[in-house]
């Protein structure tokens, strides 16, 4: 690790003021679970300054104002897992946060860091996009709210300006009749990077017909998005294995249309279709035997 300047800040105001000074020469330290690993790598440019925002108390906590859930950006994955509010109103996010890394990483890693690091395998992002999350970016001179789905340019690159920090993540509560799920596939059962993941949300009317569907795959597309091409197949229909299989295949097709056929496509093409089908089956309660995938069903 090469030497760099270290600045600990204690308020958002102080953070944005230091950021305004250093801009792209600065890197932000939140939980450090990505940054510290990266700084060890030989071939990575060492930042001039690392700004440690982990002491900012105002950036911690989970609230639920006006039919929404609001996560401060330094909320840790463990805090999300243990939050009754998240369990009740966004259980797929509880599921996603619970399978990140290890207990130690979940105790240190933050939801804001997970988003801003912008790795395609970030586990909290697919659920948050499915939930329609908006984020607040603050700089010394400005504060703006954008859709999370508009943040990303490509893996590891966001539209956030060098002088901005992420302060809040806000999304509407899921009502109790809405079902959701999150599936993660990794190479081992803990401390695992997602090979593929899927976040799904389904709403059905009294007759069982699907009225709203949201599907966001992880580690599949260069930039996360809801796969509306697959979602529309579901609207107005009743759940069935055939329907969910078709939706899965559609997601797979969309993935290939974005990425082309490449070295990993042979594996990802059938498997993302399977995971989408399973995520949808989990939403409607048809699939229960997925404990080993560490899924969480509501």
């Amino acid at each position, binding site marked *: 690790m090469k*030497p760099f300047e270290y600045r600990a800040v204690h308020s958002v105001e102080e953070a944005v003021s230091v950021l305004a000074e250093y801009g792209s020469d600065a890197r932000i330290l939140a939980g450090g679970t990505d940054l510290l690993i990266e700084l060890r*790598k030989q071939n990575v440019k060492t930042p001039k300054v690392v700004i440690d925002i982990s002491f900012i108390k105002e950036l911690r906590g989970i609230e639920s104002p006006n039919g929404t859930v609001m996560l401060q950006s330094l909320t840790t994955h463990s805090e999300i897992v243990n939050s009754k509010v998240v369990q009740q109103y966004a259980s797929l996010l509880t599921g996603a946060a619970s399978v990140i890394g290890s207990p130690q990483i979940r105790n240190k890693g933050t939801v804001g860091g997970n988003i801003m690091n912008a790795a395609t395998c970030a586990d909290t992002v697919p659920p948050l996009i499915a939930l329609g999350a908006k984020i607040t970016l603050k700089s010394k001179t400005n504060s703006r709210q954008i859709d999370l789905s508009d943040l990303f340019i490509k893996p590891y690159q966001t539209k956030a300006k060098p002088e901005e920090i992420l302060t809040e993540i806000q999304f509407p509560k899921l009502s109790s009749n809405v079902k959701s799920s999150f599936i993660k596939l990794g190479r081992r059962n803990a401390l695992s990077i997602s090979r593929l993941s899927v976040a799904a949300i389904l709403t059905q009317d009294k007759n069982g017909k699907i009225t709203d569907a949201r599907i966001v795959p992880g580690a599949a597309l260069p930039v996360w998005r809801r796969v509306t091409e697959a979602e529309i197949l579901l609207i107005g229909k009743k759940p069935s294995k055939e329907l969910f299989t078709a939706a899965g295949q559609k997601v797979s097709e969309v993935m290939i249309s974005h990425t082309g056929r490449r*070295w990993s496509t042979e594996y990802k093409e059938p498997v993302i279709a399977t995971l989408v089908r399973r995520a949808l089956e989990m939403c409607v309660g048809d699939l229960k035997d997925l404990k080993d995938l560490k899924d969480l069903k509501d």
Partner: protein
Amino acid sequence: MKHKIIGKGERRVDALGKVTGTAKYAEDFNVMHQLYGKVLRAKHPHAKILKIDISKAQKLEGVEAVLTANDIPGDKVFGVVVKNQAILAQDKVRYLGDGVALVAAKTKEIAEQAVSLIEVEYETLPIISDSEEAFKPESIKIHGDDNQFVHHHVTKGDIEKGFNESDFIIEKKFKTQFIEHSAIEPEAVLAEPAEHGGVIVTGSVQNLFSTRRSVAGALKLDLNKVQIIQSTLGGSFGGKDEVMTAMCCRAALLCMKTGKPVKMVNTREESMIESYKRHPYVLYYKWGCKKNGSITAMEIKCIADGGAYASMSPFVTWRSVVQATGPYYCENVKTDVYAVYTNNNYTGAMRGFGSPQVNFAIESMMDELAEKVGKDPFEIRLQNGFETGAVTATGQKLNHRVSLKEVLTKSAEAADFLNKWNQYRTSKQSPKRKGIGLACSYRGVSLGAEGTDAAGTIVSVQTDGSVIVSSGITDMGQGAQTQMSQIAAEVLGITMDRIQFLNTNTSRVPDSGPTVASRGTIMGGAAAKKGAEIVRAFLIKTASEMTGLDVMSLDLKDNYLIDTNNGERLASFNEVAAECFNKGRPMYGFGWHKSPQTSWDEHHGHGEAYFTFVYGANIAEVEVDTETGKVDVLNFVSCHDVGKAINRNSVLGQFYGGVAMGLGYGLMEEFNFEDSIPKQLNFDEYLIPTSMDVPNIIPIIVENEDAAGPYGAKSIGEPSNELAAPAIINAIYNATGKRIYEIPATLERVLLGHKLTRKGERGSVKKEEVLADSCKIRPEGR
């Protein structure tokens, strides 16, 4: 015979220090005025060194020495079998881990900076990264004029006749991978100038005596001027041999040059770049079989990737050639095992030592044979498996108790193997399918005909009755110190708290060979028994004089002198010890144990390879997700004949750890190279099993006491690790009906039947596409 301490689960003698933090690992040793040493390693996996310019590094403030190969006063290369491993590269570099120059500086940071200021001019050479490529006559030579540096063979009977007698032939190719030892403690040493010349090196060294020879050779010192002291080790698994020898030589060189203590510690990344790995093998197995399931011929060819240096390859591959047929009767055998040089990391000793590779092939073949003749895996092994008196492929008659059928039967019963195997192979509806798999093995104990096999242990009773034990056999965490202490305590009739075990120091204990080959307990333990018996005789003689009783009526038990006629306590052990000292008798027992004779005829490829063998069976029960390729191991039965469990808990620890490590070998671990450049340098990308991946394990300890070992003890360290992978692979077959011929059984191999490789495709895809899979390397910028 009833034992007081042998066979119990006594607390490890090193446990308290390790859990309270008083144990000192190599990095914990620091002294005044110590310098920090760092290594400049190769820039290319294969290149000529044209020029090394150290002038800029030398001028840096705080730098005290910059050395290259030219500064080594003695031997510039080392090696236990083939002396060709460079302490520092001279004319060329052969893999990315080769050291090119050394720096000693006042701080680690200055040392690192100085390393970056050394300028090396290279002329790159073609790279050989594939073992079969290395064989080709036109391929570039890495050492001398032939890349093939080992060929062992075993022949028995007439292979042609064997195939002619067969009803059918099974012919398969298998492949195994490089894996990392993954000890939690990376390499570290402190080298200090000794008081009257020479050098003292304290470090995380597994094999102290071979290291001492190399350091003495490099520095042109007598062996008595080089002390290697073993710090408490944070794991080794065979991995702290040559890589530590190189580090000790380098630190000692810097120390002698500067006259100051020098500390060297590898980061995990440096460790992964430089350290040796388990050999990947390509295995060609061809069996001639009869319809009744017997085997008439086995023709076997294995090619081991030895990497840049010979290291332990000649011995690793020798164990493979001896054990390549498995514990199965076959009259006609032809086995050839080769090792070749490549520009990959060199490969050497690792828990198992040439057996995990062949066991994967043998046990897969045995299941294929069962399938072909309509038998189950249990029945086919009982039919073909060795019994007492069997003659192995090398012509050795097994005169000890051959317990193969016992371990097979006990494990099959514990796992309900046959019922489950039949049930799982027919239920194929659900995408998630269960499967159960069996594997067994035999394994030669200790070094065998590799070389001299002897060890010494010292038992020293103090005037207050406390005891100090030390040995040339080292502890790396496997529990050797505890086993030897238990044996000494048993003989002396004292409790374990009376014993203090000293870490090994080459100047204070006899050269006992390397602590490898699962020989710690059988060799060091046998020596401890003899040492303690010597002291005991003096104590009992003294006690006889104290009490006027005949020596035959006296015993030492629970820290007391006992009258065996009535069990009465006559004196405390401490009193007897004090009196023994007052009488001027020695209370120091030096036990030396030499193993029974073995023999090997390399020309004909047969002989009495090992003085005894152990037998084990493993059963894995898995669930395979046939839509994603994910394999979970649900339950596991591990059954081994250990001869005698000296410490029950240590044996169980070996069972559990061996299974966990074998699971990693079978399912996820893979040290990948791209053109001989390692693709992963830390545990974020090199995956080993977590506690969430390790199944419920049922251990079955079988004890057929062997005349060759102390109290009948044999081995367990390596046997416990060599069978898990084939048991899991056979279980996957039982679940899916598809066999894995190349480990590890990753998501892709299980789902698609082959590995995905990024190689060669990078340029042909759009930039956006490449990045969709880039969860590993983050480009610059925020």
